[in-house]
């Protein structure tokens, strides 16, 4: 389990450096977003996505997936969806999630917010027999 966590941290470090460069200064990407899936099956860490994101900017971020006890989960199928809280518009793009270089590391690409305000993002995860999802808010300025 400790090993798993260490791997997670490493993956995040690498991925995060890349995102910080790509995303510029606006939106603070220094702190990862840590999430637990609704039914508690997975732990998800997003690096390079800020709770407060900026508008009209196509970007990507790193997603690390682990079991509840911290083992990296490779080969999962992951879908990211989003809708605007008030007008219920979906995202203007279709982001994709693809596996990264290490187990448990994924890369989300093609995310853009075109309307300011609260967005609800949902990550749906399928791995072997288990399915779970997590929803969280991003505030777009």
């Amino acid at each position, binding site marked *: 389990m400790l090993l798993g966590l260490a791997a997670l941290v490493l993956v995040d470090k690498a991925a995060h450096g890349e995102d910080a460069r790509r995303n510029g200064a606006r939106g603070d990407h220094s702190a990862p977003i840590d999430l637990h899936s609704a039914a508690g099956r997975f732990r998800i860490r997003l690096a390079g996505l800020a709770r407060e994101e900026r*508008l009209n900017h*196509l970007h990507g971020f790193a997603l690390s997936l682990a079991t509840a006890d911290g083992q990296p989960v490779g080969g999962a199928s992951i879908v990211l969806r989003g809708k605007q809280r008030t*007008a219920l518009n979906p995202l203007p*793009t*279709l982001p994709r999630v693809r596996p990264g270089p290490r187990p448990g590391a994924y890369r989300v690409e*093609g995310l853009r917010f075109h*309307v300011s305000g609260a967005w609800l993002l949902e990550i749906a995860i399928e791995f072997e027999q288990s399915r779970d999802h997590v929803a969280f808010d991003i505030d777009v300025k």
Partner: protein
Amino acid sequence: MQPLFLVALAGLALCALDAARAQPARDATPAWTAAELDILRTLTLSSLPRPARDPSNKYAEDPRAADFGHRLFFDTRLSANSSVACATCHQPARAFTDARPLAVGIGVTPRNAPTIVGAAHNVWFFWDGRKDSLWSQALASIESPLEHDMPRARVLDVIRANRDLGADYVAIFGALPAQGDREGVNRAFANIGKAIAAYERRIMPGPAKFDRYVEALLEDRRPAPQDDLTLDERQGLRVFISDQLGRCLRCHNGPLFTNQHFHNIGVAEPQRQERAHADVAQSILAQGRIAGAEIVLADEFNCTGKYSDARPGECAELDFIRRDSPELLGAFKVPTLRNLTRTAPYMRSGDRRTLEDVMWHYRTLPQARVGKSELNDLPITATEFDQLEAFLRTLEGQIDAPALYLRPPISAQAK
């Protein structure tokens, strides 16, 4: 009441008035909150970055290509009857529009001509976004039977036959293709578009009264008197940015006042179209983005196509395009709101003559004939709609481009 007292009162009132005049209305309206200032900052031109690189056009920043593009933009020889140029419908003095409801070239097009000022920042081109670059957009105008009506082979014939054009072409792109070399003609035709795009990339909006006003606020100084927004303009701006009132920022955001996406706001097809074709609502044209997305994906001149200079993986917009989604039906691109004072009439249909007519659209919320309008009733008064309009007028500015790019090139003038 004593007459003397009245006189004194009137005097006092005059003094107060004077004071108000000397201290422009900043103090008369509530000051902008920190949150509002944050929003205002995102709308000023100083927040506009340089346009993103266009990986599909390796000539995009080439000054020789831009000069050549400038000549082509004004050149009527690239049209079937030698009387139409890009500049016919995109006139510099009208912020690159044409003052007509529907643009007229070789025929009458079914659309109002949008401005091209700042177009280098666009993600998609045309009202339905059926093009993904400035250069491939230009090719469509040249070949459209209603605009230039010039098939690509004939364009190349014109370039070959005119020494001035031919020499420019060869100096930038190398040898012209042989007549009948279809592949070569396509490539050369794409180059023509790339030169025009290099020119268009230089045409940017310059600061407006609004920008100078906000700059002053952000630097915590008093705006110059001519840059200070009036009470009405200020109130309009407040309504515009408010999430409770105007909610305009949902779509008209960023320094160009567009989110570069597609929304259905219930604007019908042009009346002229409706009269001519009873089934216009069924036409591809009226489907908006839902059709535009499919067209751009199938376009031989798109970013992933063989005439593009992009490497694999560089066409992110096409890679992540949203298609076939219900909200895209009847949805059209959000236009910029800069320089509206010079770009009447309005909307893709050109059916709104004045800004007041546009405000009427947002007041009356017509139902969409195709798809579903996203607009909701706005809790704002008639006066506030007038104020919105007053604010929109503060977005007029000079065009930021080399001065000679705003005039026909010397050769075209001499002709």
